[in-house]
Structures are given as structure tokens and as C-alpha cells.
């Protein structure tokens, strides 16, 4: 469709003149493809995925330090490492950081990087919105952590119950930083959910029906729906708290007749889907790793998909199992106890399917495979303790003890984090073009398994012995010394294991280049170069199978034996695409918009002028963004740097090249 008068940016000069690329006369449209500016203005899902991943790992380091402080304090009875006040901040920030700033964004990193590749698309539905998600996440994390420098971190636990979170019990700003930091980060999740759902539903390659999508994409899709509906509930709770603290509202003012349980309900209605938000992507990751290193398709693909969907649905009906002792009464307790028992079923289905995938396979034990298998084993242990929590009488003893701490660390660390680290080893060659070293990886793996289990298994025992959560120290005569000491040793072992990981990352850059498909993979991301070209695929493939790439490489002969097909071409090559591919253009506006948000947050606490400044930034960015075409028309007419070759380098194109008719798209009927 020709660019008409109406479509040009407002300030663009008339036809025939050299286009001035200055939307609103403020910024020139960014064009950098390398350097720090390119990262600031990128809208490429792969770069955004890398940003998410790097930032998560940075916050993992911070959260890990907080954990080590906790363990140092608890190594011995009557620990003197941290005061009680400092201890409360340490465990609050550890939990909040790990949940919101590590596991969730790591999942987002994988989803962002892989989904377009796995469904055969060139990018997500809304690339600039994707960038906004990342920057908003970053600034949310910054606001949360700015609390350390501005009077103290939040200290009321990651779940921040009322009325403790109110002004009378928490007069400092710590809670406000928790609230605002997470409100900002919540925007990232909500916006990301809308983007990725639209991408999965709308941008699949021809022939890729929903039931031909890789399991990772499916699990991510369910996760995004969970985020879409769960984040607003947390948002409500956070606004109510904010209005109480900033404007004197009465939502959690017990004297005025408010009910603190309102916070608990709102929080856990979000909070329970949240744990599935954290685990489903890891389930998806290992559902990719296990088949590849078993040289077998995932066992029971439809069951994997439907159990993921079932978990998504059922996860909404169990939240009050976090509230069994809060006084909701026996009828409610019984109802939620029952529903919680049911939810073990779809997860159990997955465990069986993973085992079924391994069974009879030609197993190759690589580092990513090890992490994946560790998830299966460790998550099962966490699941078993979870079943005991579902039984409300036993939970009545277990709740608020270290037994719970053991449970959720087994599923979230032993499960989600192990899966995600495995994913890093698995996809590292694809993303960066070189492998991480196996030997260092094995050191990382074994130290991490040892350290993790040493840290958290004893906590089952400590919990059953009655050691309460969230207490800064314990007496010498409680009999908890030994296991606490063991746990602390384990935690430092975990730290050491990650030193191996860091060393591996830092020294692997000079490794030989990785090939496109080093693991003999099954899904489409392995069908392009390592790293992929900026446009992902030279030509979008037409899909006719689940595990499409595998089926291109292997055919079955008459005896149903797999025969490798000769000379299967990758879907991207050095030569680049036959006809230039037009990509969406980079933009500063997502960064500018996100930048306004922390100023609003700090402004609400310190000075309304600061908040107004932030508001102006946000408003200006919204208008700048809306009025900026997603594809720079100046690029199409005059500049060729949006026509790209395989390395992202500019490729000259004559202005009157024949437009591509577009690959024939199969009708995809759902």
C-alpha cells in the first residue's frame, strides 16, 4: 500500500525532499545496529531476550547474596551476623527478588527469544511493546532496590501482609518501595502477556496449527494467560495498600472495621497462579531438552499440552491453601484442601510423560540433560511435600515452619531454576554462537545439586521439628543446630557452583563457533544459524508436522527406521534472503516511557514535582510512540539500513524493486 499524504509523520517534508527523520522534532529515529545505543533502542525480540536474561542473572546474584546473608545468620544459634531488622529486610528482598526479578524475567527471556523462532515468525506482534516490557521490568527492579539506599528495604515478607504493611506498623518507606517497584514490574508482565498471546495466536508460520507448536511455546502461552488475569488482582491489592499509606484510606485499617484478610485473599488469588507462572516455562524448557537428548519425541504431546492448560485453569481454585490457619473457617478450609489435592493430577501426568520420554530413548547425558532430569526428580520431591500441605490438618503444623520453605524451594529452585539453567546451557550456542564448556558445566551441575539438596532437604526435618520461618535467630537448646549448619554449608556450595557458571560464561566467548544445530534438535529455532540472523529466517517455512525441523532431517523408511535426509538446507544462510526483508524499526520511546515510571514512584514519596516530571515523560513518550510509524517510512524510501542481510548489515535495494507477493499462506483454521 502506497504511503499517502495522510500516513507520513506530521513533520515530514513533502514528496521529493530528503526526508527529515525527526518525529515531533525531538529525537532522530535511532538507526544504530551496534553499540550501547542499539541496545537502548532495540525492538528485536532476540536482543530483548538477552537483556531480560542478563538482567535476571544480575538480580539472581543480588538475591543470592541476600540468601547467603540469611544462611550466615542462621548457621549457628543466636547468630550475630544480622540484626532482627536487617534479617527481615534480607528475607523479604530475597523472596521478592527471586520471584519477581529472577524467575519471572528469566522465563520472559526464554519466551521472548524462542517463541518467534519456534513458531516461525520474524518477531513478536508488537516489538516496541516488547521493549517496553523489558525496560519497565528493569526500572521496577531499580525502584525496589533503591529502598536499600533510601531508608531501608521492605521487611514484611515477599507477601507483605496487612495490617503490618500499614503506616502504623511500617512507618518507613520500605513498604512503599515494595509496592511501587512491583506495580511497575507488573506493567511489564501484563504488557508482555498481551504481546506474547497475540504472537502465539496470530503469527504462526503457515501450517503451524496450535497442536504443532512446541511444548515450550504452549507452556509459555498458558503462562501468559495466567499473567494476563492474575496481575490485575495483585494490582488491586497494591493500589489499595498504596492509597492507605499515601492518602489515608481505610482498606486495611482494622480499627475502622477493615479486614486484613482482604489483602491475603487478593494477594493469593494472584499468588497461586503466580507459582504456576514460574514453573510452567521451566516445564516447557525441559520438554524441549529431554526429547532432544533421548532422540525421541515428547511422550504424549497432547497430554502435555492439555495438562498444562488444566494446570492453568485449576490454579485459580486453590489459593486459600496459603491461608489455612488464617481463620477462614472449616468449610472454606475443606473446600480448598480438596481442590489443592486435585491439582496434583495434571502435574503428575507431566512427570509420567517426561519419564516416558526418557524410557527407551537413546540417551545422551549432556549438561542441559542433567539439569532437566534434576528438575524431574527434585520437583517430584517438592510435589510430594506439597501433597502433604494440601491435607489441611498436617498443614496446620507445617505452615509457617521450615517445612514450607523446603517445599517451595524444591519446586522453585530445584524445579524452575534448575530447568532454566538447563535451558541456558541448551540454547546458549544458538543465542551466542558458541558453546559453554561441558566440563565446567558438570562442575556447576554437581556442585549445585549437592549444594541445593544439602541446603533444603534438612529444612523438611527442621520444619517438622517446629522451627518457624522468618525468625532472625533460634536458641541453642532447640536442637536445630546441626541441620542449620548443614544447610548453611549447602548454601555456600550453591554459591560456589555459580562461580563455575560465571567463569564458564566469561571464558567461553573465545570458544569455537557453534553450528546451527549442535544438538540435532527438533524445533524450528535449530533450523536457522547460530546466532540467528536479525530476520530469523530467510524464508518462513511451511510447517506440516510437530517437530517440523526433525521431520525435515529424518524420514522413515519402509521398516519405520529413521533415515537421515541428505543435505537439508537451513532456513537461513550466509547469502541472506532472496528478497530484502523489511523489519520494524528501532525506537527510543519504550525506554523513555519506562524512564518516567520510577520518577512517578519516587515523586509520590518525596515530591509531587518529581512525579509530575515522570508523568510528563510518560505522556510525551505515549504520544511520540503513537505518532511514530512502527516501520520508519524514511527507511523504505531513502535509507536502506532497514533492509538487512544475514548479519544485520545494510543491504542496498533499488527503490523500484518489485514487491514480494508474499509467501502463500495456508488457511489456518482453528
Amino acid at each position, binding site marked *: 500500500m502506497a504511503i499517502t499524504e495522510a500516513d507520513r509523520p506530521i513533520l515530514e517534508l513533502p514528496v521529493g525532499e530528503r526526508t527529515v527523520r525527526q518525529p515531533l522534532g525531538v529525537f532522530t529515529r535511532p538507526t544504530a545496529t551496534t553499540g550501547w545505543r542499539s541496545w537502548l533502542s532495540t525492538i528485536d525480540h532476540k536482543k530483548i531476550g538477552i537483556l531480560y536474561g542478563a538482567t535476571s542473572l544480575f538480580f539472581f546474584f543480588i538475591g543470592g547474596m541476600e540468601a547467603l546473608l540469611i544462611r550466615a545468620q542462621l548457621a549457628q544459634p543466636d547468630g550475630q551476623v544480622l540484626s532482627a531488622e536487617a534479617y527481615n529486610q534480607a528475607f523479604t528482598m530475597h523472596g521478592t527478588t527471586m520471584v519477581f526479578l529472577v524467575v519471572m524475567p528469566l522465563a520472559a527471556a526464554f519466551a521472548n527469544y524462542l517463541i518467534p523462532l519456534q513458531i516461525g515468525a520474524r518477531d513478536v506482534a508488537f516489538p516496541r511493546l516488547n521493549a517496553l516490557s523489558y525496560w519497565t521490568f528493569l526500572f521496577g527492579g531499580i525502584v525496589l532496590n533503591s529502598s536499600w539506599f533510601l531508608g531501608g528495604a521492605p521487611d514484611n515478607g515477599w507477601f507483605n501482609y496487612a495490617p503490618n504493611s500499614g503506616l502504623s506498623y511500617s512507618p518507613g518507606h520500605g513498604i512503599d518501595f515494595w509496592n511501587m517497584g512491583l506495580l511497575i514490574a507488573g506493567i511489564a508482565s501484563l504488557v508482555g502477556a498481551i504481546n506474547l498471546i497475540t504472537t502465539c*495466536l496470530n503469527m504462526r508460520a503457515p501450517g503451524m496449527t496450535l497442536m504443532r507448536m512446541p511444548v515450550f511455546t504452549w507452556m509459555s502461552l498458558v503462562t501468559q*494467560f495466567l499473567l494476563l*488475569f492474575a496481575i490485575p*488482582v495483585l494490582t488491586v491489592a497494591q493500589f489499595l495498600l498504596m492509597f492507605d499509606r499515601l492518602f489515608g484510606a481505610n482498606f486495611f485499617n482494622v480499627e475502622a472495621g477493615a*479486614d486484613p*484478610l482482604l489483602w491475603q*485473599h*487478593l494477594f493469593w*488469588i494472584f499468588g497461586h497462579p503466580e507459582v504456576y507462572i514460574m514453573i510452567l516455562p521451566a516445564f516447557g524448557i525441559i520438554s524441549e531438552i529431554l526429547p532432544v537428548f533421548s532422540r525421541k519425541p515428547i511422550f504424549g504431546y497432547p497430554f502435555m499440552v492439555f495438562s498444562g492448560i488444566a494446570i492453568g485453569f485449576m490454579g*485459580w*481454585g486453590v489459593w*486459600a491453601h496459603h491461608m489455612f490457619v488464617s481463620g*477462614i*473457617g472449616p468449610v*472454606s478450609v475443606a473446600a480448598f484442601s480438596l481442590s489443592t489435592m486435585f491439582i496434583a493430577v495434571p502435574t503428575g501426568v507431566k512427570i509420567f510423560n517426561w519419564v516416558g520420554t526418557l524410557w527407551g530413548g537413546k540417551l545422551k547425558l549432556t549438561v542441559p540433560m542433567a539439569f532437566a532430569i534434576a528438575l524431574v526428580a527434585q520437583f517430584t520431591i517438592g510435589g510430594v511435600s506439597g501433597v502433604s500441605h494440601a491435607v489441611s490438618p498436617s498443614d496446620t503444623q507445617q505452615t509457617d515452619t521450615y517445612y514450607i520453605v523446603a517445599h517451595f524451594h524444591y519446586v522453585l529452585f530445584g524445579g524452575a531454576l534448575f530447568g532454566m539453567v538447563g535451558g541456558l546451557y541448551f540454547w546458549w550456542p544458538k543465542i551466542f554462537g558458541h558453546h559453554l564448556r561441558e566440563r565446567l558445566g558438570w562442575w556447576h551441575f554437581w556442585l549445585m545439586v549437592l549444594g541445593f539438596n544439602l541446603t533444603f532437604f534438612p529444612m523438611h526435618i527442621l520444619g517438622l521439628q517446629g522451627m518457624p520461618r522468618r525468625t532472625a535467630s533460634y536458641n541453642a537448646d532447640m536442637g536445630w543446630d546441626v541441620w542449620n549448619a548443614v544447610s548453611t554449608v549447602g548454601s555456600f556450595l550453591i554459591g560456589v557452583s555459580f562461580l563455575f557458571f560465571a567463569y564458564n560464561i566469561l571464558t567461553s566467548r573465545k570458544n569455537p563457533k557453534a553450528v546451527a544445530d549442535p544438538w540435532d534438535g527438533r524445533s524450528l529455532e535449530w533450523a536457522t544459524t547460530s546466532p540467528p540472523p536479525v530476520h530469523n529466517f530467510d524464508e518462513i517455512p511451511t510447517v506440516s508436522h510437530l517437530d517440523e525441523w526433525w521431520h525435515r532431517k529424518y524420514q522413515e523408511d519402509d521398516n519405520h527406521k529413521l533415515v537421515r535426509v541428505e543435505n537439508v538446507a537451513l532456513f537461513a544462510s550466509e547469502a541472506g534472503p532472496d528478497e530484502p526483508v523489511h523489519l520494524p524499526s528501532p525506537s527510543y520511546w519504550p525506554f523513555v516511557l519506562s524512564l518516567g515510571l520510577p520518577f512517578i514512584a519516587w515523586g509520590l514519596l518525596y515530591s509531587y514535582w518529581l512525579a509530575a516530571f515522570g508523568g510528563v515523560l510518560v505522556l510525551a513518550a505515549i504520544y511520540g510512540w503513537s505518532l511514530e510509524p512502527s516501520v520508519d517510512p524514511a527507511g523504505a524510501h531513502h535509507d536502506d539500513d532497514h533492509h538487512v542481510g544475514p548479519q544485520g548489515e545494510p543491504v542496498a535495494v533499488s527503490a523500484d524493486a518489485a514487491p514480494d507477493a508474499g509467501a502463500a499462506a495456508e488457511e489456518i483454521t*482453528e
Partner: protein
Amino acid sequence: MSHTETHAEHIDEEHDHPSDLKYVKIAIVLAAITAAEVVTFYVEDELGALLAPILIVMMIVKFGIVAAEFMHLRYDSNLLTRVFVAGIVLAVGVYIAAMTTFHYFSS
């Protein structure tokens, strides 16, 4: 013309799409229901326990008409209806369950 419809779908859309006059008629119906709602305010005592159910039914009907006609759900893909209904059903379900634990519905 919507960017992503095929030509055939475009024709269908033209035929199924309400005309301006139909929209006005729909608005009149909505106004009438609103008027009926206001009337209940004046006869509250006579209605007694029926007040809430009657009002809720009228609310649902108005909601449905605006969603189906003004928001065009009736003429659009099922997927959009399912997405919106999912949000509504989840919200209603989850919040009613929460309120039940607060014994809101029992005296």
C-alpha cells in the same frame, strides 16, 4: 477495510453489520431498560427480595447487548468472545469464592 480480512469476510461483515438505524434502535432498548432500572428504585419496598435478582438480570441483559452489538462480538470471531468471557467468568468465580469465605452471602 479491516487490514486482515479476506474479501469474502469483508462482504459478510457488511451484511451482518448493524446499520446506523439499527444502532439507534438498540440504544433505545438500552435506554428503556435503564428507565426500568430506575423505576425499581421507586418501588423498592414492593419488590422486596426480588429487587436484587431483577436488577441483576437487567444488568446482564444490558451488558450482553453492548458487548454483542456495540462491541461487535456477535459478528466477530469466536476467539474474541471466548477471551472476554474467560475474563468475566474468572473474575466472577474467583471473587464470589473469596466473598463466600468472608461469609458475605450468609447472614
